[in-house]
């Protein structure tokens, strides 16, 4: 990331911190707001957050890295959460997982070379009676067969062009 971008994103972060610092237990809401605004929690935002909350950088680093939801690198244009939990496994998740990784050419926590799709594992989306389940950019999909997965990915790539 170039310096200009870093300054720009830190201005966004500073505004969020100023707005939310007085909430009791403000750190998680702030990290969510930063990720919602920037797509991830940039390394250079940690001192800004730490200063605003009177915490050490280590405290903030510890919290960011504890939670799976917070990402520390920019994601692709679309985020696919593939459920790995037991109910989905019982309903054909293994085959879907193998197909997703092979067809996208990536593993979990990776982004396709064209920057279109980031694949993340998730442990239950609460759609256990309509398995396997996948969430694409916050939209839930049930009974996702490999061909339905391909259709969803085609839709993603079509929209992002």
């Amino acid at each position, binding site marked *: 990331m170039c310096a200009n971008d870093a300054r720009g994103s830190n201005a966004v972060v500073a505004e969020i911190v100023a707005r939310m610092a007085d909430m*009791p*237990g*403000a*750190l*998680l*809401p702030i*990290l*969510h707001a930063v990720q919602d605004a920037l797509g991830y929690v940039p390394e250079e935002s940690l001192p800004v957050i730490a200063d605003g*909350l009177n915490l050490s950088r280590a405290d903030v680093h*510890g*919290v960011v890295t*504890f*939670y*799976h*939801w*917070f990402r520390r690198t920019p994601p692709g244009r679309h985020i696919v*959460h593939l459920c790995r*939990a*037991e*109910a*989905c*496994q*019982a*309903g054909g998740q293994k085959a879907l997982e193998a197909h997703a990784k092979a067809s996208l050419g990536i593993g979990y926590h990776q982004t396709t070379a064209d920057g279109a799709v980031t694949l993340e594992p*998730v*442990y*239950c*989306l*609460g*759609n*256990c*009676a*309509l*398995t396997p*389940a996948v*969430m694409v950019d*916050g*939209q*839930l*999909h*049930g*009974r996702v067969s490999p061909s339905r997965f391909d259709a969803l990915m085609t839709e993603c790539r079509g929209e992002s062009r």
Partner: protein
Amino acid sequence: MATTVFVPKDAAALSVGADRVAAALTQAAAASGRDITIVRTGSRGMCWLEPLVEVDTTHGRIAYGPVTEDDVPGLVAADIFGGGAHSLRHGTVGDIPYFGSQTRITFARVGVVDPASLDDYIAHGGYRGLARAISMTGADVVKAVTDSGLRGRGGAAFPTGIKWKTVLDAPAGQKYVTCNADEGDSGTFADRMLMEGDPFTLIEGMTIAGLAVGATRGYIYLRAEYPHAHQALLTAISRAEQGGYLGADVCGTGRAFHLEVRLGAGAYICGEETSMLESLEGKRGEVRPRPPLPALKGLFGQPTIVNNVMSLASVPAILADGPEAYAGFGVGRSRGTLTVQLGGNVKRGGLIEVPFGLTLREIVEGYGGGTASGRPVRAVQVGGPLGAYLPVSQLDTVLDYEAFGAIDALLGHGGIVVFDDTVNMAAMARYALEFCAIESCGKCTPCRIGSTRGTEIVDRIMAGHDREQNIAMLEGLCETLFYGSLCGLGGLTPYPVRSALTHFRQDFLTSE
């Protein structure tokens, strides 16, 4: 007059196309000159029938499902808006045995009302419990909850009234009510369905709790994986505030109760109550040693109620209809209703609210109709990723906390996941340990290290290396996890592992 058509906007229904069906119905009605009003509800819980469309007629709400957008032209031609005959028509939902045989108390309004409408909630009996609670002393409200026999629905089954009494009796300037909506167990979705389909019930339950024990602030700790529930809660909280049911002066009593939603961030461990409190305080979700109990020293060090969504959502009905009515359901020390969530490889998955006391077989074979794949059932996991795997020979176990305890299993949050005979149980045992390793908070050694060592041992067993010796080591490791872990994550991971070893040992002896 416009015909009212109900289409769910529950996430499960959306996941199979409910929005497209609603759009197709609107379009088809306009094209055929019918005046319809579409109301977006929660789900009736019959997931295999989703999207389930209901049409208000003189004969009641007539249900059609599962409806796809491609079915809509045919349905309109068959006069769906007049309740006309069609192969997807089921009569009213009560005519469907799966639904008609249930006892809906906590879920009475889910799928019926518009979850964004305070008026609808009140018209369907909402806020009667709060009205009753306001006329009682805090101690009497707590007594009513105790008398109902309600036990925590999150898994541990601790009597809710006793928790409340501890907070009531604790002297403090600030107390809190927190709702654990971090429903991370695989196979469970009751909390999500309630929050999306009838969020005011949870809000009312928390308000009653707050007024009863003298807590002026409440937090709902919701998992980030539930964006639809988040939206439903934010809408409902804002409507309740506008209606005077939340805020500085609840219903003109001069007493305050402020409610806020806080999002988790993908950590399963934050479903453990002390870890959830740490997370609410903005820290790493590491487990706290107990004592002190959260009821005495909880959020920000103050006396705090920590209850599950189902527990809090059961409270309005207990206050409105009296504790005796609620305690009248169930068996033994398991009173009231249990919301079973049936999922995995099952023909008719969904949410089933029944009194405690049915058998697992009645749920899996009766309601569920066996596997979706049509192959024989081999294993059933009850109670989430920390629950035991049960063989078919244990399907006659009665659904109550004590009966499950007697067979070394957990009822937990009521999630039931069905597997057919293609499942490899050594692989499932390995997954249980892998999950524990991924989700361990790292505070205690048995869980942090033992989980990873466990996956390595199962790998060796599956590869055929010194099987008997490694199985003995795995059993020893389970004992260490069980007795040596700080909380339920490490402490209960032995349940799926040991039950797989006990009931499906051949999978450990033959798999490659």
